[in-house]
């Protein structure tokens, strides 16, 4: 994990002091609401329905045990005892008092954390695959490059007031778990013909009101030129992105309106000016950042030890959890564990202060003191010995953290929605819960295989509904909450955007609608085909017919 040096620490201390001063000036009436707005947003602070909401950055999802405990403390002392993991691998607190925020930031700074640029029209937290560094199918660990981008984008003076928010993802694995193609900039580690590793860079992807899959701007950029290539794209966007209409201000609209060829030409022109300049990365810097993400001191172990295979044979609940929540690790004798935070009755992504402490303890005991947050709002213990999986599972169970529904229908992505968010048109958490209650049987869920349901409470698409196999979007119709359902979305390597099946439904209808969709899937499924494949094969019509059929 990256470790701060005196420069990083100084930067955070300066930020805390700056924000304390800004907050005081606001409370004294010296800063207007509209002037304070971007300042607080760039510190992750929203003013929400019930209280302010503070979004804390978790750079590319990495958290240490010490940081988890600090988050637990913040949940306890400044919130109502829980936090919420977001689809940007961040964590947010829904109940802090405005005047406490500078103190919370000071607490965070002690453990090398902050809320910098977690909101506002600037470059947001860079995300990556939660299995970076341990995945079997990885070309190279993406995290050193995420850290390089994090530093470059932090307080970048030229790009603090962009037309709109800006999100970057980096992916180093074959199976894309970072939804890279629906980012403003998506970066894939790739090899060129000469066998050198560099970057393929897409731009203009995004969700929100107009979902778009990004287009290739650079087919191969050498590592040294990563930042200058990004700077070139950013400058074209900052200069030419639309500022007349908030809903047309993302880079995807600029790329579309300019035309891909013309946009690429502008970027290349800009790149020619900055390429080989001071921002050109040095081998020293790349190696320095890589040195923070080296493999831990793994023991020499065999796969499938008796300490794993014995309880697998004797404890069906454990076996079910391993089957669903444990992923192969590149190191023999180790496993990747995903703690699924989608227990029925708990808002997706929510964790309590005691769970945070508990996860910290488990990280220390079983996984070198580190965890990763996933954009599916779950938590990963990346380096667990296979012979300790059973002990770990038992301890997870004690804290209601052994939910064995990872990747299944009930492991939904869900934004906070109308219960908390001032932007939402409709609630989303109760929708998630009503669907979970409709499918209580884990065996049935397992038989259905991987199905991704994503729920957003409004067009801003924090719940990534466009890329859900089943997407649910809350809409407002004359003051009443309705839900639009789409099918066929995916954020995997062959990303696709869902298609709306027809008129929207009331909250009460949704569980039955999902049930009907699943019945169609079951009736048409070949073997153990996944929902998405069945959908792609039979198309939207059979689903439509079933859902909108008149009762006889």
């Amino acid at each position: 994990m990256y470790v701060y040096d005196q420069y990083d620490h100084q930067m955070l201390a300066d930020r805390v002091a700056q924000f304390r001063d800004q907050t005081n000036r606001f409370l004294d009436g010296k800063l207007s609401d509209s002037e304070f707005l971007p300042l607080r947003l760039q510190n992750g602070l929203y003013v929400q329905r019930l209280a302010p909401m503070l979004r804390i950055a978790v750079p590319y999802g990495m958290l240490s045990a010490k940081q988890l405990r600090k988050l637990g403390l913040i949940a306890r002392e400044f919130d109502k005892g829980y936090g919420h993991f977001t689809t940007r691998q961040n964590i947010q607190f829904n109940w802090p008092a405005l005047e406490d925020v500078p103190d919370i930031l000071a607490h965070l700074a002690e453990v090398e954390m902050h809320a910098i640029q977690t909101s506002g029209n600037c470059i947001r937290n860079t995300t990556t695959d939660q299995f970076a560094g341990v995945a079997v199918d990885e070309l190279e660990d993406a995290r050193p490059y995420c850290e390089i981008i994090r530093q470059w984008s932090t307080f970048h003076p030229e790009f603090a007031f962009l037309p709109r928010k800006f999100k970057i993802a980096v992916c180093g694995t074959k199976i894309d778990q970072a939804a890279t193609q629906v980012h403003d900039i998506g970066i894939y580690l790739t090899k060129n013909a000469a066998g050198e590793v560099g970057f393929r860079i897409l731009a203009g992807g995004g969700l929100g009101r107009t979902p778009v899959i990004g287009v290739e701007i650079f087919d191969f950029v050498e590592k040294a030129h990563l930042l200058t290539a990004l700077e070139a794209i950013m400058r074209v966007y900052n200069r030419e992105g639309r500022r007349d209409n908030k809903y047309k201000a993302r880079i995807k609209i600029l790329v579309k309106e300019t035309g891909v060829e013309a946009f690429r030409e502008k970027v290349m022109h800009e790149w020619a000016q900055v390429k080989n300049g001071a921002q050109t990365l040095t081998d020293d810097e790349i190696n320095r950042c890589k040195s923070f993400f080296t493999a831990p001191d793994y023991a020499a172990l065999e796969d499938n030890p008796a300490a794993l295979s014995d309880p697998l044979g004797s404890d069906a609940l454990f076996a079910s959890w391993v089957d669903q929540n444990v992923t192969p690790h590149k190191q023999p004798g180790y496993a990747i564990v995903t703690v699924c935070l989608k227990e029925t009755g708990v808002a997706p992504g929510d964790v309590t202060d005691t769970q945070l402490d508990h996860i910290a303890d488990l990280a220390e005991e079983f996984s070198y003191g580190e965890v990763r947050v996933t954009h599916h709002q779950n938590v990963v213990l990346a380096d667990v010995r296979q012979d300790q999986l059973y002990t770990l599972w038992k301890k997870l169970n004690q804290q209601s953290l052994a939910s064995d529904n990872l990747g299944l229908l009930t492991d939904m992505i869900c934004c906070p929605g109308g219960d908390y968010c001032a932007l939402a048109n409709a609630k989303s958490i109760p929708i998630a819960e009503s669907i979970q209650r409709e499918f209580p049987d884990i065996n049935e869920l397992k038989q259905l295989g991987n199905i991704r349901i994503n729920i957003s409470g409004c067009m801003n698409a924090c719940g990534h509904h466009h890329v859900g196999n089943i997407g649910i979007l809350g809409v407002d119709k004359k003051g009443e909450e309705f839900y639009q359902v789409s099918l066929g979305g995916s954020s995997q390597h062959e990303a696709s955007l869902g298609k709306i099946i027809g008129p929207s439904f009331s909250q009460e209808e949704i569980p039955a609608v999902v049930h009907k969709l699943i019945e169609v899937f079951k009736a048409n499924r070949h073997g153990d085909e996944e929902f998405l494949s069945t959908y792609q094969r039979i198309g939207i019509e059979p689903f439509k017919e079933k859902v909108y059929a008149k009762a006889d």
Partner: protein
Amino acid sequence: MPKLIRNGEIVDDHWSVLKEATGPEVLTTVPGKNFIAPLKFWKFYGNELQDYYGEKALWLDSDEDVNDIGDLLNDMPIIALNFPVFSDGRAYSKARELREKFGYQGEIRAIGDVLRDQIYFMSRCGFDAFALRHDQDAEACLQAFNDFHTGYQASVVEPTPLFRRR
């Protein structure tokens, strides 16, 4: 006399900014004044300006392109960049382009909605003069230059990025 921050000090501002809608007659009404005229004014009334004996400079609005300044750049003592609202960030790129692409050495002045909390970023992009919005406390704004000890990126004031200095 309005106050200006220039090179980190509060000084009197001897320049007037001409609004866009102004015609060339303005040059005769107040002879000898120092004018910062919009780029369009320079394009339309370049000759009248050349004959005018006061000091003159140029300002660019946020939707205008620095490339359009053309040869005028060479003898401009000031290029002012307008912030119609403080949250319009286009002038940050313009300032950097003027310094880094065109090698412009004269004063780059922020005009319009210029507030304390943006001064640090502006200065890193190459602005060295700040015509503050009327309600801003100039003394307080001076502190903005020290908001951060250093930055990660290459910038006009720190051309070497932190990773080359660590």
